[in-house]
């Protein structure tokens, strides 16, 4: 997520709006953004409702066995269709901003 912030201009240049989603509350997201200097949109999914609809639920994956989201990235085009996805198998390995920008360049 730091990589996205760093390359925010690049994302804008290719016409893509990055949006981060987690089960954290708006207050927690605000604190995280403030601390880490994130300026893009952070959305709050309390109770993991949308996470469940996207089939990304990681049951008891949180530090206190809360239900959270597994890491995943989706590039959605303006018609709402998924154009690129990434599901890591290791929480230490995430999609890199360059990869995502390259995928964004292929959008019509």
């Amino acid at each position: 997520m730091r990589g996205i912030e760093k390359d925010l201009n690049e994302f804008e240049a290719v016409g893509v709006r990055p949006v981060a989603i987690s089960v954290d509350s708006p207050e927690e997201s605000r604190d995280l953004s403030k601390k880490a200097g994130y300026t893009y949109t952070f959305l709050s999914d309390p109770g993991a409702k949308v996470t469940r609809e996207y089939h990304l639920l990681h049951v008891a994956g949180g530090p206190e066995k809360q239900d959270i989201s597994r890491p995943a990235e989706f590039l959605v085009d303006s018609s709402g269709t998924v154009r690129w996805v990434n599901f890591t198998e290791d929480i230490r390995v995430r999609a890199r901003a360059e990869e995502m920008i390259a995928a964004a360049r292929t959008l019509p």
Partner: protein
Amino acid sequence: MLLAVLSNALFFIGVPGQRVLPWLILLLSVVALALVIAGLKRVFSQSQIYRGKVSAVILAVLSLLLFGFGLLASYSGRNIPAAPGAPQVGQKAPEFSLSDSNGKPVSLSQLLSAPLANASHPKGVLLVFYRGYW
């Protein structure tokens, strides 16, 4: 062993070829473990040359602990569910409405249509689901 632990830091630097890092770390750990065992053997078989059996054993135990922590980190890092039902390329992303960090509701269709900061029309949205609890 220290090298194996320290190589975890590479994740944060974001070097290319990140995907191989977990395996590189495991490889370094196994090499380090082999060196520790070889060292221990030497200390005990040629004790007239190599002194310090006690410190050797202490260091070996410490190394083993580090190895254990490494394995645990590796296991918990990979212990995430697969996502067979998640939207795939070509499928529609389910519509949603969620609160942003100011508590304002935002929907996917709004994200796809509202102009970007440079006033251009967005070509798409990158949804990044993350674990939270930072």
